């Protein structure tokens, strides 16, 4: 079965950023995204969802390498200083390259 390589960009950030991150990734060329609720801990301390929007979201974007680094660069520039956020990029195989 024929597959092609794409990048899987995973972003974990504070839930308050959800709407803005969605706008950003779509504007920067992602054809879709998947979000799950998450909690966790990092340099900005513990973040858990059990009150208001104090939790994290975990966003995944499957896209080509250029889009991935464009998004990564944008997020780093706009959010890293003031918001709880990390991101990492991995390699994945997809069936319908045209979708991503």
């Amino acid at each position: 079965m024929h597959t092609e390589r794409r990048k899987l960009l995973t972003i974990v950030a504070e839930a308050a950023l959800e709407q803005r991150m969605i706008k950003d990734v779509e504007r920067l060329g992602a054809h879709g995204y998947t979000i799950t609720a998450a909690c966790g801990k990092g340099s900005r301390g513990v973040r858990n969802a059990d009150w208001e929007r104090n939790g994290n979201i975990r966003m995944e974007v499957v896209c080509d390498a250029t889009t991935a680094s464009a998004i990564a660069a944008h997020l780093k520039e706009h959010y890293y200083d003031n918001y709880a956020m990390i991101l990492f990029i991995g390699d994945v195989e997809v069936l319908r390259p045209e979708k991503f």
Partner: protein
Amino acid sequence: MTLDPVVLFFTLGLVAGLARSELRLPSAIYEFLTVLLLLAIGLKGGVELSRQSLGTLAPQMLAVILMGLILPLIAFPLLRYVGRLKRPDAASIAAHYGSVSVGTYAVAVAYLASQGVTFEEYMPLFVVLLEMPAIVVGIVLARGITRGTRWAPLAHEVFLGKSIVLLTGGLLIGWAAGAEGIQPIKGLFFDLFKGVLALFLLEMGLITAGQVTGLRRYGLFLVVFAIAFPMLAAVMGAGLGWMLGLSVGGTAVLATLAASASYIAVPAAMRLAVPEADPSLSLAASLGVTFPFNIMVGIPLYLALARSLHSAGG
């Protein structure tokens, strides 16, 4: 000064949280309780509102908004120059204390009821009016007017935030439906009010416990401010209530509103508009100190204050 039973639930949550109990209400339930409280408060206010004339309310509304603008202007210099906090932090905390906490309002209402003290029941209107102004002041204090803040998304965030939408919606529905129109839904919104408040406070206690543990990091000044400023604000609020000719109960409620610090609408707005402000700082103060202080110690004090003002002022 006897504690209202609902406050005992807060204590239970606080103790359990400090003892690191695994106890937690699911966030969906916390949301549910908040929605019930906001709607119930709005509905009660709306029903009463339908009995008032705008003529008598307008001046009071203006005065209350003015208070919402002045309080953060007093808080800011204290935080910035006495507390030596960074500008954005000082501005953000000032906004929190200029705004209001609906949970604190609810406890005040429950306390007055248990004391048999009546008050102007359209006061939820003031809660709505007080949420916004301090936020504007806080942002201007952080940014200056010069540097263009993108106000549109911000206004959207605040005006369409959960608390204002539900309070205003409740006010309008209560106002439109009137006392008997509300009857069929009072089972859920009014008969359960205090029980719902009790559960809400249980969770607030657990949340507060989480904040308290973080307090150490921020030093003594923040704790002192989080107790002293509310009392100062309460005096102003009580004075204003008295000047506006509110009843003893109404004066106590306005004092409570002045003394209360936001932990829902303002944090969200500040995160958006003043991201460089450390959110854990303002939450530690408003949730970790001011909220418990107000519901356990403050509210009875503010009622006493209102009483003496009225007996003095005759």
